[in-house]
């Protein structure tokens, strides 16, 4: 699970070091990598949780008051 983090920081590190050698535009690649590694670590945590979509912080309390999150957007037409 920590691999996602290692990929984010390690990959960004490799690309940053390469940047002066093979062109500064690869900083954009490093930025993208860090962004997506953030998403991947959320994905990992979610996949490791009990129902595949949980929050590890909620699962230690016995009866967690789950909320189904946030406000509705884009629900103009219902089926």
């Amino acid at each position, binding site marked *: *699970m920590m*691999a*996602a983090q*290692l*990929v984010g920081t*390690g*990959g960004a590190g*490799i*690309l940053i070091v*390469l940047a002066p*050698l*093979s*062109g500064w*535009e*690869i900083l*954009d*690649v490093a*930025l*993208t*990598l860090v*962004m*997506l*590694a*953030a*998403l*991947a670590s*959320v*994905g*990992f*945590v*979610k*996949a*490791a*949780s*009990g*129902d*595949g*979509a*949980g*929050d*590890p*912080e*909620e699962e230690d309390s016995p009866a*967690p*008051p*789950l*909320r*189904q*999150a*946030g*406000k*509705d*957007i*884009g*629900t*103009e*037409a*219902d*089926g």
Partner: protein
Amino acid sequence: MILFDATLCALIIAVALATVAGRDSFRAIVFFIVYGLFVSVAWVRLDAVNVALAEAAIGAGLTAVLFLAGIGRLRRAHVQADQSVPLHLPAALACTGLTAALGWAWFALPLPDRPAPQLAQAMPQAGVENAVTAVLLNFRAWDTLLETVVLLAALIGVWMLTRDGNWSAPVGVPQNVRPGGILSGFGRVLPPLGFLVGVYLVYAGTSRPGGAFQGGTVLAAVGLVAAMAGTVRPPRIMATGWRVALIIGSLAFLLAGVAGELLGSGFLTLPVAIAGNAILAIEIALTVSIAVTLAFLVLGPPESDGSGGSAS
């Protein structure tokens, strides 16, 4: 640098081996993410930064999250865990043969005289400085137009898998988030930053590496983080506004194509005078569509609480 390249290639193969031979699917995905990183660096070394961006965003990012979400959905359905893979000798032999054949093909192929001079001659008429963007949105616009249709077809295919009872539920599995927790805080801080990064990539795509696909993928990732952290609730399939967002890219493309026909330069051929502005407009519309489509593809068909897997 050749030592760096050799090490990189060895690492790619080692990680791919671990992906195939790993103990369970969770580990396989871990290695797949690392694999995506290395392949992305390989594209940088091959002097294809546009592809490196796409691989970093899609290969190492969205695809892995798609598989992780797949594991989560299998777990919801109480599917039994997988076992390790026994060695399959005939398959191993056949695949070694396949690799050997491809390697032979590499050394047997005649050296082409590339890049073809036509592209360099045509670049002044493209309207953008990034040659890859010019190819994608102008010279080979047919490919990209049909690709947006493929994306839509895949999304329709995914939505066809929805159970009848879930049709009006929000897309994807219901996400549980502790209010005020770390995850929900992250879901508020990251999206604005990520949105900036995505828009920057699209904007950069006209003159340097980047573009609608890369920027759209980052925006899709932002949407996915927001959805998984509970900042926003995913929309329903029936939501009209989101349906418009899905098709606006293909629509803009078609409109530009028809405009090219009317202005006399031929269907999907942008007249030189308006090429720059037209590409920017297409690119913005395309980014919206790609971002929404990819995010919906990764979220999967709607599933409502409690009925996951019990309906059969």
